[in-house]
């Protein structure tokens, strides 16, 4: 089978070709310029961060051998040859791990409750007054932008050492993060039910309760579960500043070079995070699946 390909006359073709080449070269120039600026920024950053490649290469062996060391028991054997010795402190660690999980659970729940109470004021379509929306939004932004561990540092001084500071820090950070996500769900909600309920003479509160909340609960639950997952990781390092949980044990082990303990605690944390990830993922799938059907 033959197909005829029509070729444009020479003059027209030349003009088109020139335009094409110009467009390509303009794009290349822009890319090159962008890459140049980026490279300059990187070089500047490298000076700022005192990057020293010599140090890296000299000590990179240390990094690799660090993992060798944390996988070796005091007796010189590999850790997995004697699991009893490796996890010698498992009672204590499991207790701390439970504390970590409780910290993230309580923190997430308190944070989600506050976020639930605040998000209707922050959403574009449901906020009763624009000044209120502005104030609530800035508040949430503050709670979200200041890292949780900074709150923990301050709370440890105010509330004393212990898990309470960790819980409150996680609660505040979660309020900020969830408040934003929740209000975005509300902004995407269908406003027709609200009109329907308002036309019956209902108050703002009833509008929220009967028109918005039924639409958004599944999304809220899904985000809260996701947050819980993130908070488990966060709670595992709260102990670094004395705010409770397994981080305390870990930082002591790292700083005092109890090598095999480091790997044991790290493994415990990683496995827990895995399990939580999988469980919440499954739960979220079920939540969304169920809502999609009704």
């Amino acid at each position: 089978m033959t197909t005829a390909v029509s070729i444009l006359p020479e003059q027209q073709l030349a003009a088109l070709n020139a335009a094409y080449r110009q467009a390509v070269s303009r794009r290349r120039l822009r890319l090159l310029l962008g890459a140049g600026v980026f490279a300059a920024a990187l070089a500047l950053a490298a000076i700022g961060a005192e990057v020293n490649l010599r140090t890296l290469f000299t000590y990179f062996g240390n990094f690799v051998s660090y993992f060798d060391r944390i996988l070796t028991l005091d007796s010189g054997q590999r850790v997995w040859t004697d699991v009893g010795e490796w996890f010698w402190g498992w009672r204590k660690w499991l207790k701390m791990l439970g504390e970590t999980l409780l910290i993230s659970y309580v923190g997430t729940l308190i944070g989600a409750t506050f976020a639930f109470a605040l998000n209707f004021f922050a959403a574009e379509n449901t906020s009763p007054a624009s000044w209120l929306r502005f104030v609530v939004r800035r508040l949430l932004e503050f709670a979200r932008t200041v890292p949780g561990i900074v709150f923990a540092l301050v709370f440890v001084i105010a509330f004393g050492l212990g898990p309470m500071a960790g819980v409150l820090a996680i609660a505040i950070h979660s309020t900020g993060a969830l408040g934003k996500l929740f209000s975005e769900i509300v902004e995407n909600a269908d406003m027709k039910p609200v009109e329907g309920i308002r036309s019956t003479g209902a108050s703002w509160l009833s509008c929220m309760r009967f028109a918005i909340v039924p639409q958004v609960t599944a999304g809220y639950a899904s985000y809260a579960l996701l947050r819980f997952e993130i908070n488990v990781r966060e709670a595992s390092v709260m102990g670094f500043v004395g705010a409770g949980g397994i981080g305390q044990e870990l930082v002591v082990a790292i700083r005092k070079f109890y090598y095999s303990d480091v790997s044991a605690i790290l493994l415990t944390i990683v496995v827990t995070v895995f399990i939580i990830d999988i469980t919440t993922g499954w739960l979220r799938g079920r939540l969304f699946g169920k809502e999609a059907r009704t």
Partner: protein
Amino acid sequence: MTPQEVDTAQIRARYPDVFDRPASARLATPAMIAAALAILVYGLVDLDFSPSRFFAGLSQLGWITLMMIPPDPGSSLPIYLKALGETLSIALLGTTLAAVFALPVSLLAARNIVPSNILRFPVRRFLDSIRGVDTLIWALVWINVVGLGPFAGVLAIAVSDFGAFGKLFSEAIEGADQKQVEGIRASGGSALHEIRFGLLPQVLPVIAGQVLYFIESNTRSATIIGIVGAGGIGLQLAEQIRVLEWQKVSFLILMILVAVAAIDFISGKLRFAIIGRRAVA
């Protein structure tokens, strides 16, 4: 369609799931709420939440807040500015390093490039375990290796983002359109050609957007890794909190907020320029 007579009884009989939900389904929600509250109460007790401690702490916190006003850097403004620059450098360098190393690995973790489950599985689990360890922990490990200072921070961010990028990039690659790859193969391209001309043009804008987003969020991470000694403004912040210089603390927090907002703004603009309206619409 004309409205029809509805036989309620018949509909009830036809959809028993809707009208006669079994007791287990009706009780599920209250039971779940009760269980959640029970765990909450147990947690509050177990974590020593006493009202007296809470209110004492709250009043203490009120005092601290009062002492924070007005924010005042004292005479250390140049030091703080330098520390802020260090933090931004850590975020930029760490994220770039992570992206550079994650790109080839993410190809190995993508289903449409490596169809073999046996090969892909270990790569994925490897990335997962890196992500399971927090940036702060990586920072502590790197401090043991290269010593205190911002360089440890760069490496910590690079390692922990490497895990995250590997996953995100591989998902972007799996989401790419296969037709263009097939087109390259049909015209006789090798496997590398397929990746270079069929895949990369599709995924690079997505990846660039993700990298920018991470630079933004890493500005936050970079502030906290200073707390364990890995340089940047977090180091100053932790020190000032420990010596209870609250005016300096509030000034540092303000600096962080302003810096994060500025980076947000810039990277938002850049992302828009790179990905274009496509991502917004």
